[in-house]
Every structure is written in structure tokens, then in C-alpha cells.
């Protein structure tokens, strides 16, 4: 595939992620903070998001699997996951975390467990999408092109 075609594909794909609500304006902030002196900034922070999320999702699964659920602990984990997702602009994960926190406040175990599935689902989706995006970026750079950030036009 030629570079111009890949760049167009990157643009369309990025725009679709915003339009479908996977990402919000915070992700654009991250892109703006990336420059020649920090060419991998977005990949670095998103990788930290993946690490945080996977740890927290495990913690949540185990906390909600206890005989008597410690809702304070659950809430602390969700709070962190909500923070990480909002820091990188993973909007749908963040929204699912807000819903989970509400169930946690009501001490509704069934609600919490159902909602945790939703958070996991959203996390896996956005992880997959971001990995596709980064792969496309690598291909563009490998072919000698640049990422057409300014053409996003948001």
C-alpha cells in the first residue's frame, strides 16, 4: 500500500474512533503533546493505561468475587480505572466506570458484576482499536511517511 493511501486510512480510522465515542478530546490533547523530542509519547502513556487497566480489572474481579464484598475497596479500584481512562480519553471505559461506581455506592453486587463485564468489554474494544491505530502509524512511518495529525481538523 502506498503512503498516501495509508495516511487516508489512518485519518478515517482516527475519526471513526472519535465519532463512535471510543475516544474523546483528551486523546487529542495527548497527540498535541507528542513532538520530535517525544515521538512516542502517546504510545507510552497508552501502554501505561493498558498496564493499569489490566491490573485494576483483575483486582476488581477478585474484589467482587469475595464472600463479603468490600465496597470501599471496589470503589477505590474503580476510581483509579476511571482516572486512567479519562487521562487518555478512553471515553466509553470511563463512562462504564461511572456506572459501576453508582452500583458500588448502592452496594448492588449483581449490578456491579454486570457492569464490570461492561467495563471489560469496553476496555478490550478500545485496546484493540488503539493497537490497530498504532500499527497503522508504524506502517506509515516505516514507509517513510508522517502521521497527518494536522489534517484531523477537530
Amino acid at each position, binding site marked *: 500500500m502506498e503512503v498516501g493511501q495509508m495516511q487516508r486510512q489512518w485519518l478515517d480510522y482516527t475519526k471513526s474512533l472519535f465519532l463512535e465515542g471510543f475516544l474523546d478530546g483528551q486523546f487529542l490533547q*495527548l497527540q498535541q503533546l507528542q513532538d520530535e523530542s517525544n515521538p512516542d509519547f502517546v504510545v*507510552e*502513556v497508552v501502554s501505561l493505561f493498558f498496564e*493499569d487497566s489490566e491490573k485494576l480489572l483483575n483486582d476488581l474481579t477478585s474484589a467482587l468475587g469475595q464472600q463479603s464484598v468490600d465496597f470501599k475497596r471496589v470503589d477505590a479500584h474503580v476510581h483509579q480505572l476511571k*482516572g486512567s481512562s479519562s*487521562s487518555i480519553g478512553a471515553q466509553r471505559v470511563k463512562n462504564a466506570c461511572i456506572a459501576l461506581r453508582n452500583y458500588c455506592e448502592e452496594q448492588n453486587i449483581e449490578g456491579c458484576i454486570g457492569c464490570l463485564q461492561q467495563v471489560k468489554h469496553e476496555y478490550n474494544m478500545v485496546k484493540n482499536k488503539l493497537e490497530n491505530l498504532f500499527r497503522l502509524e508504524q506502517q506509515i512511518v516505516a514507509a517513510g511517511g508522517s502521521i497527518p495529525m494536522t489534517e484531523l481538523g477537530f
Partner: protein
Amino acid sequence: MGMAATESQFHVLAVDDSLLDRKLIERLLKTSSYQVTTVDSGSKALEFLGFHEDDQINPDSPSISPNNHQEAEVNLIITDYCMPGMTGYDLLKKIKESSSLRNIPVVIMSSENVPSRITRCLEEGAEEFFLKPVQLSDLKRLRPHMVKTKVKDQNLDKKQENQENPEEKLDKQEIQSEKLQQQQQMGNNNNKRKAMEESLSPDRTRPRYSNGVATVV
């Protein structure tokens, strides 16, 4: 006030337990041309600042932290609110109760928009309260607080040299009256803090004990 000359020297200490958020705030601050040090807890922040409990009793005693304090002057502290162990609020209180650190402006960041929390932090002497995720545009509001501290420090230096610049004194008086006006408005409007800050001049300070020190000369 020689702002352009001193701007590049502004040093910000950023405190956040989340590595992701430290990366983010570090990058935001560097992009805004500040020198940045990040730490992951309130106690490490205090260690970096050379804080010790005796500060209140004996302000002239030397710092226990041998190198950090003198070499790395901190012009502003920006801290997360919700941290395990010492919260951002606890850190703020420690700093404002310390005779050697209380002049350093403190800004609190939080992902929760809880009006009572915001009020409590501002009453304790925080200069600003930023909702997370912090934006590049938020960081523009930091500079005036650092400029003021610089001016104060310069005045304190001059006290030792036994001279004072009347223009700078005037500046401070203006800031003071602005502060009073804003404090009055703030009484009813705490939950609109963020929006309000956008439109108003960003100066709002705690009562200034050093003002008295500077005018004694």
C-alpha cells in the same frame, strides 16, 4: 518585573501516585516551558522540599535535607488530591503550616468535582483547583502565581540588602485588593470555580504574612 528573563527558571514540583498521570503532567508542564520534578507521594514531596516538623518552632534552623532544598528552588507545587497515605490536602496543610515552605504556591488536581472539597482546599490556601484531566489551557493559570512568588522572594532578598523597589510594592497591593474582591465572589460560587477562573484574573492568594515582612524594612 523581568518576567521573560525569569520564566525559564520556574520549577514545578508535581505530585501524583499514578505513573500515567505523572507522565502526563510532566509533559504538560514541560510543553509549557517549566522545569519539572515529579514524585509519587506527599511524603516524597516534603522530603524533596527539605521539610521538617520543627519548622514552625524554629524557622532559622537548617534543613535536614542536605542538597535538595537550596539547589532546587521550587516555585510551585501541583498535587493530586486523592493519594494513598498522605492526601493532597494533607500535603497542602503541611506546607501552609511550615514557616519555610508556606510561600510556595500549591495547586490541587482532582478528578472529582466535589464542591466541599474544592472549598476546603482553597480555604487552606491552595491557589487553584484543577479538574482532571488537566489541560494545557489550565496551565496558563499557573504563571501568575509563580511570578508573584518571585516578586516576593526578590523583595525578601532586597530586605537583606536594605533596599526596596516601590513599584513592586504597588503591584502587591493591587494583587491584594483583587484577592479580596474575588474571595467575596467566591463565597457563593464555589462549584463554578473552574468556569469562573477562566474569566477572572487568576490571582487569589492566602493572607500574606510575608507582605508584613517586606514592609517592615
